[in-house]
């Protein structure tokens, strides 16, 4: 099983002929992901190491059977690529691109939200289901296949926690980086609901950070709808208010969005919060034994 990407994934990379798209697209393929197409306007008919390139996503769908789009195009073209994928009938869209204007993403989000589309990102590392498929920039070699579902707003922090889990011989069902922007396609809740429904996943780890209230909402959702154990880690306890901490979405506004507030909300719903990545991994190990 696993979620979002798996053996049924037929990946098209938007921007496959660009340097990043090519590097990671081919890396994903090398991992075993079924990379069926690339899209670059004007380069239809070419190929990248045997992967056919099309002018439009519609062609990638009709001619190569693509069902998942991985977007690497620059910020000013990325929202168009999202619309193009959704309107071409793609049901899973993963957008790595960062610095997308928030209002553009807000409109796109409202648009595709009413449709049968799973979107991950933007400004995210992608999705990895170890042993099955990798769509994005997550270094797959750190992770092994297993039963821990991992969902995070951060990339490298996720690797850190994955690494700690691997040290303890624990594997992952799927690792989902939902992205660090103010508006992302899937929230913690969206992904947790998928993990809850996924037979492979036995335990869920939520990795949050300052800004917004997605962690608080996830806590309420977990208390009401999730039967599997959920553990959490929150980054940004030392962050000062009003400063953007690397991610556009990681900012404490007034008194809202603090790490302490999130920890409290999670614990109030019975979700244990680890103090360091190491401690979280140890808590997972304790639960699964």
């Amino acid at each position: 099983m696993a979620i979002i990407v798996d053996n049924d994934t037929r990946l098209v990379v938007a921007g496959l002929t660009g340097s990043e798209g090519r590097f990671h697209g081919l890396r994903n393929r090398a991992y075993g992901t079924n990379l069926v197409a690339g899209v670059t306007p004007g380069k239809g008919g070419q190929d990248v190491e045997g992967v056919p390139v099309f002018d439009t996503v519609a062609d990638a769908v009709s001619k190569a059977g693509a069902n998942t789009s991985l977007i690497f195009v620059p910020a000013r073209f990325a929202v168009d690529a999202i619309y193009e994928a959704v309107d071409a009938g793609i049901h899973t869209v993963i957008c790595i691109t960062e610095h997308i204007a928030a209002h553009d993403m807000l409109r796109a989000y409202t648009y595709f939200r009413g449709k049968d589309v799973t979107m991950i990102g933007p400004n995210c590392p992608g999705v990895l289901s170890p042993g099955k498929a990798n769509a994005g920039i997550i270094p797959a070699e750190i992770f092994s296949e297993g039963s821990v579902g991992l969902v995070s707003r951060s990339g490298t922090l996720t690797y850190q926690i994955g690494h700690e889990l691997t040290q303890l011989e624990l594997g992952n069902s799927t690792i989902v980086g939902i992205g660090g922007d103010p508006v992302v396609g899937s929230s913690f809740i969206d992904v947790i609901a998928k993990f809850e429904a996924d037979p492979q996943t036995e335990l869920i780890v939520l990795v949050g950070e300052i800004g917004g209230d997605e962690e608080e909402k996830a806590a309420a959702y977990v208390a009401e709808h999730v039967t599997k154990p959920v553990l959490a880690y929150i980054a940004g306890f030392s962050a000062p208010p009003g400063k953007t901490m690397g991610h556009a979405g990681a900012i404490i506004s007034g008194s809202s969005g603090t790490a302490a507030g999130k920890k409290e909300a999670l614990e109030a719903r019975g979700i244990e919060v680890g103090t360091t990545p190491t401690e979280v991994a140890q808590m997972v190990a304790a639960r699964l034994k």
Partner: protein
Amino acid sequence: MDLYEYQGKELFRRVGIPVSDGFLATTPEEARKAAEDLGGPVVVKAQVLTGGRGKAGGVKLATDPADAEAKAKDILGLDINGHVVQKIWIEKASDIEREYYLSVTFDRGAKKPLFMFTTQGGVEIEQVAEESPDALVRLHIDPLEGFQPWVARRLVYGGAVEDPSEQKQIAAIVEQLYRAFVEFDAMLCEINPLVVTPEGEVKALDAKFTVDDSALARHPDIAEWRDTSAADPIETFAREKGVTYVKLDGDVGVLANGAGLGMSTVDVVAHVGGRPANFCDLGGGGSAEGVVDALEVITRDPQVKSIFFNIFGGITRGDEVARGILAALEQLDMSDYPIVVRLDGTNAEEGRKILADAGQANIHPEETMLDGARRAVELAK
């Protein structure tokens, strides 16, 4: 990017929201000149990107040009919450009958724009929300539906504005404010107070305006308004170098790749009893050159005593980071700084070997994030 009041008012003016005439001044003489040009009593207002300037003495009424010059002298150079006043806005004084509050913000939680309106303006909106929540009208907008006239009616009638002329003026301002919000890619547009004059005219007496950094590329005129002189000089230097840096108040300089790992590293340093000096994200790439730039930024902070590199390579390669550290040691004077380095992930082993081979005495390798943090805290003592 937060805008100054006078910049926000310029954007208000562009969409038709009524504001008072005024001029920017940086010296008492300019303030006098502005008051002369405006005629009559003026208000001298400190331009700072922080709240509470009124209480701090940053807003003063002046009866005539000479008085404006005097008040400007008082206000320029004032320290308001750590922000030194370098610019003042001189505008025609307004008689105020009533003070309202109107804002539209980017509500991340609901993923919709959120309007807030109350006739109890002039104070912090959080206070209104807490003390008289019924007086505060909150209304979300569907971004695809966009502004529709009923939105303004809900706010105006919901807020119990009774005068028909006021209703009409405020409804127009609601529409204009939404236009400003969308056109200028705002995360926040706040008018507090929105005043009614004794003559019944409604206008924006203050402006709080935040523009989405990711959208600045399509607003080059606004991007140029960024005022580096008022920001922390190290943060300004970091911006110039393209380094993601936030100054904190401790002595352990922190570098990590990725925002999440960076925040976590700062937290872990604090957790083991240390005081982080900064947050610094090397970013996804983490080139050797980027490492040099980041170290140059971090060491501008005189409080820094030790440095902790926490790298978990994904796209970032450990060997590249190691080379960057050695290059920095050559290019910058880093001999005073003990540098704790924890490398993991892509090409970590190569990186560790490069550092070991270099044999630099002030480089301290550590195996884990936690051990690295402890060592860096120890070395800062």
